């Protein structure tokens, strides 16, 4: 059993960091420890949480997706234009944008797979493309006044103490839940891990590597699109410059959540905690009032370094113990 627990170590570390952070904040500001603050944390970081789930799949498979921030921006602009200018019903616009995003992700996955190019540069091109197209569609911020938007942003499940579980938060929680099921409980999820463990071995085991790769990037782009929908609901507008740099926040959340950037290991729940930790830092800074926003970036960088160094040391130790002279057969052999 201990072997299985070992694998969960990084997530425990992330949980500990989050809880410690929360306790520290609560000690500093007595009204911090409230359901209301927690719910706001969920609402404010909903869009980031959704993309981080997709990014978790990509990174576990050994890839990276730099295009997600631009896809969010593109989605908000597309929705604003479709609903406000072209008169498309909001729900239909949602469906259309998700299909566009799926096609976009599938195309990136196909290029990565069939031309054997590094994911980082292909998704970089995707990032330019999505941001460029949204600039071309509109450079202004377009407000969205659709009735559905105000309904959705007013709707919330009221909890005690004035806390509200909003629609964006609900969507994020649902995505996190679904992501956990998909990654940990399905054949597709196992294939994602296998790809990150060894691409050639996965192919030799008869898994369709091409199909899995295309699906992974499709999933990431669709979730970026969904995140864009949430962002658009949250801000009630569409703006081509929105969500600049979100890809970095998402990658940071995934790494802080205990996922190995070289692939093969990680958990959706860890990424969720990673998002909450970043949110916690932001909230702390806004509670403090005197601290400046840049501390968030520095703190994120420090956390990133700490987790990457931690991973590197763990890998090193694991490699050392495996290189020990043969003879220490683990497990029970019964010849």
């Amino acid at each position, binding site marked *: 059993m201990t072997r299985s627990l070992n694998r969960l170590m990084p997530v425990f570390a992330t949980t500990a960091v989050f809880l410690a952070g929360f306790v520290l904040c609560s000690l500093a500001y007595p009204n911090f420890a409230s359901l209301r603050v927690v719910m706001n944390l969920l609402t404010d970081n909903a869009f980031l949480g959704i993309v981080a789930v997709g990014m978790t799949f990509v990174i576990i498979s050994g890839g*990276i997706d730099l295009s997600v921030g631009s896809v969010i921006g593109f989605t908000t602009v597309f929705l604003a234009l479709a609903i406000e200018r072209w008169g498309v019903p909001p729900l239909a616009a949602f469906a259309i944008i998700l299909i566009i995003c799926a096609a976009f992700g599938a195309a990136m996955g196909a*290029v990565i797979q*069939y*031309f*054997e*190019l*590094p994911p*980082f*540069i*292909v998704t*970089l*091109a*995707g*990032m*330019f*493309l999505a*941001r*460029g*197209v949204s*600039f*071309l569609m509109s*450079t202004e911020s377009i407000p969205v006044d659709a009735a559905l938007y105000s309904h959705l942003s007013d709707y919330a499940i009221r909890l005690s103490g004035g806390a509200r579980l909003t629609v964006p938060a609900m969507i994020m929680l649902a995505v996190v839940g679904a992501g956990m099921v998909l990654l940990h409980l399905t054949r597709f999820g196992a294939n994602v891990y296998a790809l990150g463990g060894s691409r050639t071995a996965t192919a030799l085991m008869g898994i369709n590597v091409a199909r899995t790769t295309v699906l992974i990037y499709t999933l990431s782009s669709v979730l970026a699109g969904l995140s864009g929908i949430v962002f658009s609901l949250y801000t009630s507008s569409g703006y*081509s410059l929105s969500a600049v740099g979100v890809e*970095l926040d998402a*990658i*940071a959340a995934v790494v802080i959540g205990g996922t190995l*950037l*070289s692939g093969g290991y990680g958990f959706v729940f860890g990424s969720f905690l990673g998002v909450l930790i970043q949110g916690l830092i932001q909230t702390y800074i806004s509670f403090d009032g005197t601290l*400046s*926003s*840049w*501390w*968030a*970036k*520095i*703190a*994120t*960088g*420090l956390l*990133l*370094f700490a987790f*990457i*160094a931690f991973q*590197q040391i763990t890998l090193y130790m694991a490699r050392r113990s495996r290189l020990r002279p043969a003879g220490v057969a683990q497990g029970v052999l019964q010849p």
Partner: protein
Amino acid sequence: MALRLPRIGTSQVAALVLILAANWMVSPQFFDIRMQDGRLFGSLIDVLNRGAPVALLSLGMVLVIAMRGIDLSVGAVMAICGAIAASLADSHSLPVVLAAALGAGLACGLWNGLLVAVLGIQPIVATLILMVAGRGIAQLITEGRIVTFTSPELAFLGSGSVLGLPTPVVLTLGMLALTLLVVRGTALGLMIEATGGNPRASALAGVGTRVITVAVYMWSGLCAALAGIVAAADILGADANNAGLWLELDAILAVVIGGTSLFGGRFSVILAVVGALIIQAMNTGILLSGFPPETNLVVKALVVLAVLLAQSPRLGGFLAGLGVLFGRRP
């Protein structure tokens, strides 16, 4: 593995000429250069001047990529060094300002190099740390404000001119010459290409791959620092939020356009600079032709894709196959 004969960069130069010609078609005054107050003006000079920061970054990036690495932090390092230069400019002499800013750049490079060479972290991951934290550090230095300065000495580096050429262009040419001297005047260039081409063989041939890795990231940090100083000097201030934003991507693009493979090995410093000029010439051309500047990103995306597909081992094999089919020896 695709083996290429030594490149002379015909395609890059042809692309640059083609883009410049296109610019001339949409704007007949494109090649007009006039002298005013002892300084040259004109669209062509503008391309050189505005292309300077990316060209500077590409000088470091090309060496990093030749070593099979990547440096995502150069934009953030630009912001840090610009912030340092701007905050010190009015209280210290120029040599002190420059030493502080360039020293900061070298320190950032050292950090990246140690993470990659000593801790063995993949370059993309190692430099991501500084990419995220660096901008925060820059904002810490400027305290979140846009720091302005009046020092004419520093301003000269951004908007002055030497022998009629804008200072950034002169600095870039100087740095280009220095880089060429460092890599081609010594045996470093050979060792970088050998290590990027086959790290194991190079280590067995006695090449000190670790030291060279650290040195190359430090050079990248130095180039980024200079680019940051030029950018700050140009606008008489430092904007920690926007200085160098996304320029790491342009620098990578310039290197890739310059024909250096993302998989390491052979590199060309001059062609990387040509790559930077190609990017800037496209930017300028799009502006001149009256297209919205936003078209830029879309065009860039298509260029990245085209260059990548041309470099792709798959496509290379495919084309070689075609060549054989049509009776041409590959």
